[in-house]
């Protein structure tokens, strides 16, 4: 058993795990029937699916090709940007009332998305009608 064979097994294991979770994410996206539950599928792909594929790439690079850790950067950028897109999709869902509405807040507070300036309320009513 030399190091190259071990690396080959490690790369294959990472690729299979990554592919499996990406597949499950895609199944979730197709299967769920509500816009908010659907949003959960891509967050899964973004973390472990892509993470495992990148890990495979790192191991391959160190074992068989030029060593590089660019992949760690891809991971870092994904971890920073994925929640931003997720929160915007969620906000659009709440704003368009496409999903079950969130619970009311105590006191006079509103959720930021639902707090429409008085001047824009008519347009919003018209859009909804």
């Amino acid at each position, binding site marked *: 058993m030399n190091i190259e064979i071990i690396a080959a097994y490690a790369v294959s294991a990472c690729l299979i795990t990554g592919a499996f979770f990406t597949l499950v994410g895609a199944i979730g996206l197709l299967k769920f029937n509500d816009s908010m539950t659907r949003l959960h599928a891509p*967050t899964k792909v973004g973390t472990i699916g892509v993470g495992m594929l990148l890990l495979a790439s790192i191991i391959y690079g160190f074992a068989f090709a030029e060593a590089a850790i660019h992949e760690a950067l891809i991971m870092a950028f994904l971890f920073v940007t994925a929640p931003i897109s997720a*929160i915007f999709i969620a906000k659009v869902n*709440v704003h368009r009332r496409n999903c079950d509405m969130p619970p009311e807040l105590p006191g006079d507070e509103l959720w930021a998305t639902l707090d429409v300036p008085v001047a824009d309320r008519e347009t919003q009513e018209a859009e909804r009608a």
Partner: protein
Amino acid sequence: MVRLFRWLFPHPFLTVILAVVWVLLQNTVSPGMIVFGLILGIIIPRLAAPFWPERPRGVRLTKLFAYSVIVLWDILVANVRVAWVVITVPNAKLKPAWIVIPLELRQPEAITVLAGTITLTPGTVSADLSESGRYLLVHVLHTHDADADLDSIKTRYEARLKEIFI
């Protein structure tokens, strides 16, 4: 002197991070690349300073590192759990829920990290913030006990973030 330093380095951490990212992107560690990375690390935060006027007061790095390890582990565990839910639970039996988290954190940076953590752990997505920034809205994919989820987020993540951001 202090004022010049503050003007030149509005976010000293950002300078270091940008230099490191630049060197990683080049994939070669050479003096020229480090110097160029530092130049970028000074120019970019300086140009971006008007959009981020308040500086975070400080971050406890060791605790931040421990927090990252915990979050990575949670992401692994939650991924398996959510994959199981996706494959086995039919749509009719799925119990999604909204959770309202009353926030004790006040710094925008800390709330951002908390919201990001919640979204990255599969099964929960942070959806909105209240007007005053005192409540965080979280959507849970499948839960039988929403209160338990709320408690775990508060004790596991928020309590630790309160110690990280001074």
